[in-house]
């Protein structure tokens, strides 16, 4: 077994080296396409987190004081239940607010430790009948004067812009990424094809003396997998650049009063990186498997 392992490693390295320029092209293409895939995922995630509280038509949020009285709460509910200007609303109690806080600040444990469910402000997320900005602003003003209300946050233009922007960016990136992933699979297929061509005589002899198809195949599949893995490894630093540079835009935007200052946590970036490695390795291996199988079945 150990001899076979040594054989596979040696053949793979020799083949990668012999094919250097194509190998580099394949690796770079994989790297670029996977960094686009990753960026798209991160932008999507960043936008989702930045606007988490304002989804599904929620236009404004009424935050109650943590120590509001039941009477104050009842008064708000009375308005919400009877006003024709309110389409629907959801009540987020202290515990739910705390849980959301934990998710959004997952990579800042010191911040999570500094609060308890008790100090979290409960809130109403409100979908108005008429989402017109002036109407929302008027409703928000009315609620902000109610007793027991700490603050009213509206889905400002900034939030809508983030949503639009991130949706468009991540969609464009995703389309480009899918195209590039296909391109890189084809480039890997081609690189492996060239590698196979360079070793046509060897393969002929191998089959003649009774090497199994897997024995012939494995060095090439390893080669493709290495293209994919190195490409993915190149894409990972770019994810952290995106996290630090682009996503800080969401971090600095002053649109979500109580939950500001969050970003995509490092853990999510690492998870994405792992998925990229998996994707890169798989694309490389499948690409070369296709190339080898086509050749071997002749």
């Amino acid at each position, binding site marked *: 077994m150990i001899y076979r392992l040594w054989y596979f490693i040696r053949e793979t390295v020799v083949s990668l080296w012999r094919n250097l320029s194509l190998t580099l092209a394949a690796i770079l293409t994989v790297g670029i396409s996977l960094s686009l895939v990753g960026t798209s995922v991160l932008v999507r995630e960043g936008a989702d987190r930045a606007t988490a509280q304002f989804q599904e038509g929620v236009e404004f949020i009424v935050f109650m004081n943590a120590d509001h009285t039941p009477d104050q709460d009842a008064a708000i509910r009375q308005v919400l239940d009877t006003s024709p200007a309110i389409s629907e609303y959801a009540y987020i109690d202290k515990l739910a607010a705390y849980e959301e806080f934990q998710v959004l600040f997952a990579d800042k444990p010191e911040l999570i430790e500094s609060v308890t469910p008790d100090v979290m402000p409960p809130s109403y997320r409100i979908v108005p009948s008429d989402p017109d900005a002036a109407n929302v602003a008027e409703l928000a003003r009315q609620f902000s004067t109610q007793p027991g209300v700490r603050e009213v946050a509206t889905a400002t233009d900034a939030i809508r812009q983030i949503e639009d922007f991130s949706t468009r960016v991540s969609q464009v990136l995703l389309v480009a990424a899918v195209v590039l992933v296909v391109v890189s699979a084809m480039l890997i297929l081609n690189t492996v094809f060239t590698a196979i061509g360079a070793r046509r005589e060897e393969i002929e002899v191998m089959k003649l003396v009774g090497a199994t198809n897997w*024995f012939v195949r494995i060095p090439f599949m390893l080669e493709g997998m290495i293209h994919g893995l190195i490409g993915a490894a190149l894409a990972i630093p770019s994810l952290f650049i995106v996290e630090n540079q682009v996503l800080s835009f969401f971090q600095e935007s002053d649109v979500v009063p109580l939950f500001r200052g969050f970003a995509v946590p490092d853990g999510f970036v690492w998870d994405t990186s792992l998925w990229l490695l998996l994707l890169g390795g798989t694309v490389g291996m499948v690409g070369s498997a296709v190339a080898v199988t086509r050749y071997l079945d002749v």
Partner: protein
Amino acid sequence: MIRLESVSKVFKGDVTALRDASVEIQRGEFVFLVGPSGSGKSTFVRLLNREEVADSGRIMVAGKDLGSLSSWRVPYLRRNIGCIFQDFKLLSKKTVYENVAFGLEVIGRPRPVIRKQVPAILELVGLSRKADRTPDELSGGEQQRVSIARAFVNRPLILLADEPTGNLDPATSVGIMRLLDRINRSGTTVVMATHDRGVVDTMRRRVIELDRGVVVRDESRGVYD
């Protein structure tokens, strides 16, 4: 060891390579396949190691029915069959030693076994002193000896030879035939397709003659025609 029962093989464009051929070859026999170009000699040889599959009839090799042999088992069949060719099929970037070792390496033989068997087989074919040369530094006869060493290093039951002396001068061919004879005497069945009248007439072994895919003659201790 080898049995063909009414075997036919037709290639695209209605080229009949073999028609209703029935032949039985015993273990340890030495058989010449003769006939003009295009008579089906090469197809005969290629059917035996399953590079080609028969259209009809049955082929038994080393106890296996090749028609029902699943493709993943073909490599294991081939480990029992050594092959040599007119053009040697040596790897030009590898040395003599590496060429022979390659045949063992790719069927997963451990290195200590390779280190023991390769020098022994090079000794047998008389190339011990040229182990570190590359094929293009060798004469045609020496190259064929390397290819025989590679085919025989795994001690196969059967040795298939397709025009092994086709590129060699008569004197060199004699040396190659002596080597094949020696291998045959060690118990290996040898099937050799050839054009080489001199070789066939000197050896006086079983001769099977093909003409347009039909077996027209099969005699023991035969001559070329």
